């Protein structure tokens, strides 16, 4: 940032700001057992960190300082200093930690134990743990922006479970489509969206009413949902597409061909770009959120999962 203080020309200023604001992607690669950090401005790898334990889930803290990666077969969560590209520690949680979310204040981690029926709350510093029963195959997890609620998908119960973050007790169970997987909450904390792998649609939940308000058909075997520009972008693993629908009318807007076995999808902070990870073709593609054109491709490790909020804002 010294260029800025030195008072560069407007042209240079714009260049520096452009570069400095490029988001990053933190992509766990389950087969190669590492984490690829991608510079999403240049669409090039910035770093690779060994993780181990077949890493799959990821959550980047809202301030971008930390990334948390779950290793289902290693039974641990890795705490990563995102700026320094360094694993700070592993937290052994047992079971098969999969979906993960971080509270907005960064002080709590929410980890789904996939074969253990539970959601764990972990203090990443003190490692104190609370548990709540979610049901069969806890998968995707997300926290509301105000930090008051945690939403987890009980995949094999075909339900989303709403957990009060304060008491860490379940306060609602909402029936959705068949096999809900990824969970995404909008910036205003009004709605939760979940991709139903088996019924090929997305369930939209009103969080205040705690009820299902819409079911939007998408492509075959949807995994993840990203939100930008009043639209939902859904990665369809079998169809190898991203479906776009309007979040006001729930009308379909577009179907975008992407790489092989797309799974996770995220939005840039400014909402202008959508990123999708392709598990079989080992890459991440960027998509213009307005024109739906593919704008870039970057290589990952083998078997990128990136299950969760994998985009890191960089200031």
């Amino acid at each position, binding site marked *: 940032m010294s260029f800025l203080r030195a008072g560069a020309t407007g042209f240079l200023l714009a260049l520096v700001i452009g570069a400095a604001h490029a988001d990053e992607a933190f992509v766990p690669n389950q087969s190669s057992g590492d984490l690829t950090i991608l510079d999403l401005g240049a669409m090039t790898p910035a770093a690779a960190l060994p993780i181990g334990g077949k890493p*799959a889930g990821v959550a980047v803290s809202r301030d971008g300082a930390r990334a948390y990666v779950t290793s289902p*077969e290693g039974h641990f969560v890795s705490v990563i200093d995102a700026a320094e590209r360094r694993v700070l520690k592993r937290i052994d949680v047992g079971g098969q930690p999969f979906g993960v979310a971080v509270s907005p204040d960064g002080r709590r981690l929410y980890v789904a134990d996939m074969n253990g029926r539970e959601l764990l709350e972990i203090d990443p510093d003190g490692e104190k743990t609370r548990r709540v029963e979610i049901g069969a195959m806890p998968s995707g997890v997300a926290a509301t922006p105000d930090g008051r609620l945690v939403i987890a998908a009980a995949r094999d119960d075909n339900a989303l479970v709403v957990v009060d973050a304060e008491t860490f007790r379940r306060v609602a169970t909402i029936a959705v489509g068949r096999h809900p997987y990824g969970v995404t909450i909008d910036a205003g904390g009004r709605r939760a969206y979940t991709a139903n792998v088996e019924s090929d649609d997305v369930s939209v939940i009103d969080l205040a009413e705690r009820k299902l308000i819409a079911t939007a058909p998408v492509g075959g075997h949807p995994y993840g949902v990203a939100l930008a520009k009043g639209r939902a972008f859904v990665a369809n693993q*079998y169809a190898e597409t991203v479906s776009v629908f309007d979040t006001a009318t729930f009308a379909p807007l577009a179907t975008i061909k992407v790489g092989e076995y797309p799974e996770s999808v995220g939005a840039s902070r400014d909402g202008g770009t959508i990123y999708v990870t392709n598990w079989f073709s080992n890459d991440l593609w960027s998509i213009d959120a307005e024109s739906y054109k593919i704008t870039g491709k970057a290589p990952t490790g083998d078997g990128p999962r990136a299950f969760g909020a994998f985009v890191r804002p960089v200031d």
Partner: protein
Amino acid sequence: MSPLAVFRILAVAAALTPLAALAHGATPQKVVETIEIAAPPAKVWAVVGDFQNMSWLPGVVKTQGEGGVTPEIAKRRLFLAGGAVIDERLVQYDDAAMSLRYIIEHVDFAVLPVGNLSATLKVSPAPSGGGSVVEWKSRFYRAFPGGNPPEQYTDEVAIKAVSELFKSGLAALKARVERE
């Protein structure tokens, strides 16, 4: 290789092992096998693209199905020598691209020790010579979804079984198409 050897433990007739259904918490695996065939792509696709006739796969004695080649509608049951069956469903079909994708809806783990298998068969023109390249690729899980799988249900066993199945299938496909 004998036709029966394709489906792993079929000849052994291993006892059914009760496993929780297809809940997966394990790591998805990849297998990609390819073969070159000295025949034009259209001739190869005429065989590969007929979803309702899997007679080219060693070990399959009969294919019975419905729904033609309509994705999500088309289903087939493969009857194997020895009496086992595999139920499959077509999920993608692109005639122009000569590509189809199917999933296994049900298979006895004693026949094929995998869970949640999806696979793509694609015919492409060979780089030169007018022949074809057939690619058969798959995503699947080991049969045992939890940690510490028993030795007959590990990732390695699942990968080996799928790889051998695809290799023998492609070899038989090549032999059949080149003979015609």
